[in-house]
Structure formats: C-alpha cells, structure tokens
C-alpha cells in the first residue's frame, strides 16, 4: 500500500536526509530539557520535598547546556536545527548565534540563582501551587525565544513564557497580586497580540516566517512593500514587552506584588526577552528601517531612562524603586539600539546582560532586607548595616553596579553607549545617559543611607542568621558583577562578535541555507 504512494521525486530537495549531529541536538536541547524537567515536576507534584532539588539540578543542567552551546557557537559560528527534517524555510528552524547563546546562558544563570533563593522564599503552599513546574516552563519559553529562528515560533515562545509568568505572578492569590496581575495580564496580552498582528502582516508580505529568509528577502521588497509599517508595529509590540515609555506602566504596577524570587526572575528575564526580540528584528532583519527609526528609538530610550529614574526617586517601597530602575535600564538599552553600529548594539547587549544579573540580585537583596526589617518601605526600614554588614556590602556592590560606577559591570556598557552616542554626535543622548547614571546613584544612595546606615531597632523582623541559600545567590550575582567589571575582556569579545554577527548576518544565513539555498 505504502509503496504505491512513494513518489519518485528527489527528496533531498525538500528534506534533510542525514541524521542531525550531536551539535545540532544541542541547539534544541535547552528547550527540550526544560520541558522534560517541568513535566517530571508536574508528575511529582505531590512530593513537595523532592521538587526544589530536582528543579535546581535541572537549572544547573540548563546552565551547563547553555554553556556548551555558547562554546560551540563561539568556536563554529551559528548552528541550525530544523524540526521534522524539513529544509528551511519550510520547517521551523532553531538557529542560535552568539547573541542568542549569550542571552540564553545569562538567563539560565539568573534562573539557577532564583532556584536556589526559592528554597527559602517559596514555602510548601507555593510548591503546591506549582512554583517549580512553572519555573521550568518559563525557562523553556525564555530559552526558546532566544534560540528560535522562526518569527511565528518566537511568538509561540512569548506566549509560553507569558502564561507561566501569569501563574508565577498570581502565586499566593493575595489582593495585591490579583490587582497587579490584572494589569500585567491584559497589557502583556495586548502586546503579544500586536506582535501576532505584525507577524500576520509580515507573512502576507514576505510569504515566509523564517528569520534568515526574511533577512535576505527584505532587500528586494524594500521598494514595493510597507516594511516601515511592519518595523514600526514590531517596535511598538516589543517596546511594550520591554516596558519602554510610553508603554511601560504595567511593569511598576505589578513587579512588586509577587513573591520576591518571582520578582527577581521577572526582572532578569521577561523585559530582556522583549529587548532581545527588538534587537533581533531591528538590527538583524530590518537594518535600513532601524536607521530610519533611530531618532524615534533614541527619543523613546532617553525618555524611558529619565521617566524610570524619576519614578524611582518618587517611590518609598523598596521593590517599587527597583521596578522603576528596570524601566530606566531598558531606556539605556533602547538608546544603544537606536545608536546602532558595533558600539551601540554591543553596548545594548552588554547592558542587557549586566541588567539581567544586577536587577535580579537587587530583588534578592530587597527580599532579604524586607525579611530582616519586617517592612517594605524605606521610610521604616533601618539599621540593616548593623544587623548584617556582609549583606549590606553585597547590596552596596549591586547599587554601584546599577548606577554604572566602576569597578562593577554597569560601568563598561555605559562607557560604550556614551562613547557611541558621542561618536555619532548625539550629545543629548550621551547627556541623558550620564544624567540617568547620576540620578540612579542618588536613588540607590538614598536607599542605602535610609535602609542600611540609619540607626534602627535591632529586633524587627527575623533575627536568625542568614542561611547560605539566602545569601549565596545574592553573593554570586554581586561577585559576577564585580568580576565582569574588573575583567570584562572575554565577555566584551563575545559581545563584539555577537554585535558583528547581527550587523552582518551572512554566517547566520549560511547556517540556515548552507549552499546559498534557492530564493
């Protein structure tokens, strides 16, 4: 029966006939691994004692896989794997380049730190609600978004991470959380729907969804198709995901409501996925349109960083201050995308990676401070330095890092961005970056002065000494910020190669279409 239907055609024109190599499996492994561990955790949902161990082992495995992937990509250039053996652009392709691999590795590191911190922050009720399975599925969505080479698939990963973030955000079902989730949920849904709308238009114009295929076809369509409309809509959708002004209001309305570890995860991962998508679409797929939009992006970036830092100045709640500082950081990254070139794009990527580590660390610090001081407000928190000098020192390191002071990780991206802005003559953008750094220093300085240095009662909150699971992740992230600040060369080299790969994506295209392919 089957034999009579077998076509005489040459299957090699449409299908990959050779078995995928180990290196190709590595491209898809981060997503498959996370989903597998997540499924295992769902099956073991009644064994609450086992869940944290499995999840932390799973996240450590993810860091290892992403590290291997990064070394592979650094050595051999972008790697591609297609689903169902269909040749691109027919099958859904996963293509990983330096940018995607770097983001994936830092995301996994942040998630591992959060997994360890959750040992003390997530109680049995949180475990029963499914914190660990949701965490693994969130990581599957985040990894998928960083690794996919198909724009509709990117939308699907956005939705995967969004639905698990809903679950994490509402964990505990307190009134405040429900209020925050309503705003977060509706506005993010509108943003991803806008992304889907644009992808529908893009399909109508290009007839393809593969990013490499889009990149090579854009050149010929530039005169006849409304590419500017597409890019404008993408910029709006991703800016909304990244919480850029004027579509940033969902972030400070929701990020201070969930469990501390959930806030920390979101600070490290979610807005940065939006930033990654913005970099991918504007810098790699539509560089000409990015150039046209650069003034709009620069203006949005400058206003975002100032709105963020002024918002932070006006807050009294520790975690709401941090929420506004995330927004401010997003502004700097968007300014880098607007500037473009190796300095601008590289600075944006560097800033994003730095921000993932440092903002997550600061949320950990806020959680410990709230626990020690039994208050969330910097008006009543006091005496933390006297309570635990080591913890205060780690917080101060992260405060310096987020303000962009040397010798911490925030210094180098800021230098790159200011220099790139001055090189293209955008002195006002450089001024906005420096002013934001200065104001951030005031915000964090005041925070440290009031909550840590001010004399206060010794008895408020928990008095037990801080455990390794509490202080360990914070110390690891603070030391990472210090290390990057002191010895940035390896990371800088990787970032420069990532930015070069985005500006000149021929290696990316060759990885998807080995023999040049047919258009």
């Amino acid at each position, binding site marked *: 029966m089957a034999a009579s239907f077998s076509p005489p055609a040459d299957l090699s024109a449409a299908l990959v006939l050779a078995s995928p190599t180990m290196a190709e499996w590595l491209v898809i492994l981060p997503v498959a691994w996370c989903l597998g561990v997540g499924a295992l955790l769902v099956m073991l949902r009644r064994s609450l004692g086992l869940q944290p161990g499995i999840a932390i082992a799973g996240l450590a495995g993810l860091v290892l896989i992403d590290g291997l992937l990064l070394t592979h990509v650094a050595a051999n250039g972008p790697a591609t794997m297609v689903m169902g053996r269909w040749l691109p652009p027919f099958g859904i392709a996963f293509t990983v380049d330096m940018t995607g691999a770097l983001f994936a590795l830092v995301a996994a590191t942040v998630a591992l730190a959060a997994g360890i911190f959750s040992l003390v922050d997530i109680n049995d009720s949180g475990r029963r609600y499914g914190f660990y399975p949701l965490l693994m599925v969130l990581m599957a969505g985040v990894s998928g978004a960083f690794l996919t080479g198909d724009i509709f698939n990117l939308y699907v990963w956005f939705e995967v991470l969004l639905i698990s973030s809903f679950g994490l955000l509402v964990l505990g079902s307190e009134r405040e959380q429900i209020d925050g989730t309503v705003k977060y949920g509706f506005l993010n849904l509108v943003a991803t729907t806008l992304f889907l709308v644009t992808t529908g238009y893009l399909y109508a114009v290009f007839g393809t969804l593969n990013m490499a295929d889009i990149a090579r076809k854009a050149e010929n369509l530039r005169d006849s198709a409304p590419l500017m409309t597409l890019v404008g809509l993408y910029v709006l959708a991703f800016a909304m995901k990244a919480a850029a002004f004027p579509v940033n209001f969902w972030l400070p309305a929701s990020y201070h409501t969930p469990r501390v570890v959930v806030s920390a995860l979101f600070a490290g991962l979610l807005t940065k996925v939006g930033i990654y998508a913005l970099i991918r679409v504007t810098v790699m797929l539509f560089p000409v349109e990015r150039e046209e939009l650069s003034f709009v992006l620069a203006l949005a970036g400058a206003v975002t960083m100032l709105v963020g830092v002024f918002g932070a100045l006006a807050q*009294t709640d520790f975690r709401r201050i941090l929420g506004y500082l995330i927004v401010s950081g997003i502004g700097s990254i968007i300014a880098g995308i607007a500037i473009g070139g190796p300095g601008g794009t590289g600075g944006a990527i560097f800033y994003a990676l730095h921000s993932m580590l440092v903002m997550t660390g600061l949320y950990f610090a806020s959680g410990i401070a709230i626990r020690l001081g039994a208050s969330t407000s910097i008006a009543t928190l006091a005496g933390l330095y006297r309570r635990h000098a080591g913890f205060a020192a780690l917080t101060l390191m992260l405060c310096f890092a987020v303000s962009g002071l040397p010798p911490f990780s925030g210094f180098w991206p800021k230098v790159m961005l200011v220099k790139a802005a001055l090189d293209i003559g955008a002195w006002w953008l450089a001024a906005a970056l420096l002013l934001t750094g200065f104001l951030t220093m005031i915000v964090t300085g005041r925070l440290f002065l009031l909550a840590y240095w001010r004399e206060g009662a010794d008895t408020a909150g928990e008095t037990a000494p801080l455990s390794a699971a509490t202080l360990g992740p914070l110390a690891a992230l603070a030391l990472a910020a210090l290390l990057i600040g002191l010895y940035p060369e390896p990371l800088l080299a990787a970032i420069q190669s990532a930015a070069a790969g985005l500006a000149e994506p021929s290696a990316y295209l060759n990885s998807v279409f080995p023999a040049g392919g047919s258009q």
Partner: protein
Amino acid sequence: MEAWFSLLVGIFFAVAVYLLLSKFIIRVLLGVAVLGNAVNLLIFTGGRLTREVPPVITGGADVLAGPAANPLPQALILTAIVISFSFFAFLLVLAWRAYDDLATDNTDEMRVAEPVNEPAPPLGY
C-alpha cells in the same frame, strides 16, 4: 474578496479597541475576545483567499494539480486560537477573582498595588 475581508478585519479591530479602552474589566475581556478573532481573520486574509481546494497531492504526483487553499495560515490560526482561548480562560477567572477580592470591576478603583496618596519618600533621617 481580500478587500472585503480587510474591511471586516478593520471593523473587528475598531470594536476590539473600543472595548479595550473601557474601564470595566468585563468589557475589556470582550475586547480581548474580539481582538483574538480579528487577528485570526487578518492572518487568514494575509495568506490570500484562494480556491476551496484542499492542498492534497494525489498519489503518483509530486506537486499540486492546480491552485489550492494555503494551508500555512490555517496552521498559524489554529495555534493562535488555542493560545488566545487559553489566555481568555485565564483572564476570565482572574477577572472573577479580582471582582471577588477587590469588590470592583472598575480598573480606576483597583489601587491596591499602587495606593493613591502614598507618602513621599523621606528627605532625611
């Protein structure tokens, strides 16, 4: 035919945006439902409306015999329908819980997470 569908999609989007701009969560939810369908129609139209012929290659042939319906938008829409339905279900439950716990469905009055008239941060010790 595409032109008429575009017009219909435009009407869907107008209705969705009007509802999304409301203060009341129930209307916003209806707006989300209409918006999801607007996008599905848009993708369907974007894939071009061709003849209602299933894209099936008959035995012995290598290519389609003639013009057929474009299967890819249908796959995309199927994905989008599943996703938007699950989101709608989640948001419906969330809205009900919000109404239950916060005793309002007016977003202007939902100020638990961001209280009105918060005290300004202290200016010194």
